[in-house]
């Protein structure tokens, strides 16, 4: 277990979760007509543990990414923290409140954006939905207008707010969803895959926007995502969840240090190397025309690099970390292997 709680969290915890677990009872739906009829009278169910006792503390102003494969329990955790569901065991406090008690005092202080489940009214311009939020969250008109204009200008969507939402593109809708969620200046923001399905430009705009607003307001943000770009652009802290448990909790930089043994060295040669030359490198490598990509142990880089540079016909060399996607995928896989070994041992 790698558990590094930053100082900020300890000093002023906004989210404190202890032993939080959630079990679901799912009914097996058998295949075939006969089995379906039988299941009318006797249904077989089993208990799925979506979350198996999670401890987590998040301090004010932190930007935390929840990573994990599908079904790992990320969204379950967000649902628990925003009070949509009640846990099977364990406790949670967000802004001093038990989320699933759903006190209005609590609900006025946070926001949840879940993919494309829109808070915006489909047939009306977003400006109308914003006005409703002004009332629901009891904002003074002057403050409401100031914040709305700020947010709308940051995302450059002023011209869109008077258009019916149904006429907007996915990216435009997502931007307006974010404006709606941030209007009441929530102290805590939960984002469930905010950039899913968006093009690179929209993703970038949303990254810039979230970073700016988060810093300005010292807002606490917890986001789930499958895009490492989101994580690199936004989050200093990464929590990896697999099969309902926290596998890693720490800084993004450390995840690279801790879980990679190699670096990627790319050589650009004069010409595509022949087999003899490839073997001479002495490392596992991938050849793409005149480009050779080597995986070299980190400890040996300092020794090996000068040799490579001296070699004949080398025009350029670059040294990089293993891509984050690969590290995280490796983490997910190693956990699954572990689980399989444990299972086999039983």
């Amino acid at each position, binding site marked *: 277990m790698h558990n590094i709680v930053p100082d900020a969290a300890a000093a002023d915890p906004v989210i404190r979760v202890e032993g939080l677990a959630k079990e679901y009872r799912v009914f097996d739906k058998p295949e075939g007509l006969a089995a379906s009829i039988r299941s009318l009278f006797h249904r077989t169910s089993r208990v799925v543990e979506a979350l198996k006792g999670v401890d987590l503390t998040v301090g004010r102003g932190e930007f935390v990414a929840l990573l994990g494969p599908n079904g790992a329990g990320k969204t379950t955790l967000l649902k628990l923290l925003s009070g949509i569901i*009640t846990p099977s065991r364990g406790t949670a406090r967000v802004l001093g409140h038990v989320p699933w008690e759903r006190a209005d005092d609590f*609900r006025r202080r946070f926001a*949840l954006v879940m993919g494309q489940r829109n808070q915006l*009214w489909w047939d*009306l311009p977003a400006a109308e939905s914003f*006005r409703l939020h*002004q*009332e*629901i969250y*009891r904002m003074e008109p002057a403050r409401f207008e100031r914040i709305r204009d700020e947010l709308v200008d940051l995302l450059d969507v002023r011209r869109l707010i008077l258009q019916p939402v149904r006429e907007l593109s996915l990216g435009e809708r997502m931007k307006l969803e974010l404006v709606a969620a941030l209007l009441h200046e929530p102290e805590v923001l939960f984002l469930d895959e905010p950039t899913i399905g968006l093009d690179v430009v929209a993703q970038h705009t949303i990254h810039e926007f979230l970073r700016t607003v988060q810093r300005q307001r010292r807002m606490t943000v917890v986001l789930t995502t499958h895009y490492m770009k989101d994580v690199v652009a936004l989050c200093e802290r990464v929590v990896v969840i697999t099969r309902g448990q926290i596998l890693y909790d720490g800084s993004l930089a450390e995840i690279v240090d801790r879980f990679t043994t190699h670096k990627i060295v790319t050589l650009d040669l004069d010409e595509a190397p022949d087999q003899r030359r490839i073997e001479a490198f002495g490392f596992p490598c991938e050849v793409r025309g005149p480009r050779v990509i080597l995986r070299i142990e980190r400890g040996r880089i300092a020794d090996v690099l000068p040799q490579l540079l001296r070699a004949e016909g080398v025009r350029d060399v670059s040294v990089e970390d293993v891509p984050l996607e690969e590290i995280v995928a490796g983490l997910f896989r190693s956990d699954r292997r572990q689980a399989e070994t444990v299972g086999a041992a039983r």
Partner: protein
Amino acid sequence: MSGVAGGTRGGSALRGLRTWWTMLVICIEERLVYRGDFALGTLMRFLPIVTQIFLWTAVFSATSRTDIAGYSRNDIVAYYLLTMVTRAFSSMPGLAGGIARSIRDGSVKKFLVQPVDYVSFLLAARVAHKLVYYAVAIAPFALVFFLCRGYFPPPPDAATFAAFVVSLLLSFLLGFFMEAALGMIGFWFMEVSSIVFGYMLVQYLLSGHMFPIDLLAGVPTGLAGVSLADVVRWLPFEYTAYFPAAVWLGKVRGERLLWSLVIEAGWVVVMALACRAAWWRGTRRYSAFGG
């Protein structure tokens, strides 16, 4: 703590009302997007009345009687036209199904996360729906009533008219809370359409939509001196169609009228509480089972 709450209660009630008003205005704007649907639909709804006129003309010509259960042929036609007014208040197309859908597709989550009450929101949406409907439907209604003016007895006195208006407003609330409570069953069953269908059937028979409830006065129940009409009077259904029409036509008067209004108001309270309870228990179940 309680002192603070007490001090701000008046202010917070006012805030709640303002929030509700904003919801209403926005719902009206949303409904106006679909105003075209209403105009044609309203006229279509009057078509069955032509069949009713023919049917009851045939019934009365086959008998030597000039009235059935106190209704002349003209009274019957006037009754059907008036139940259309009542139904315009009490019917809630799509309400139960919409609630069940919001539970199934998860859009109900919004009301768990945001500090806004789902039932109040639904009520605002429904008032908006009705107001926009009346604005569009008033012209066809006026036209049909003008063409059929010959069937109506002279208009009622001011007190009866006031009772009629109250019974109509209560029929709106009763229809709303009954169907909303029905929709909340969606928290327990994935699909409520067959339950809604069953409700519609009972509603159709016992509300007076099909014939005046007075016709049931001759139907014995097995209890001495208690007719089916007496039983129906204690159920909520007749207040969503029969009762206001009967008030206008002077079929229910005096003390009985007052008592019927009390029963109607009582059912509104019962259904509003049932709706609340279903929401409360339903959301707890929803939260426990996955969301």
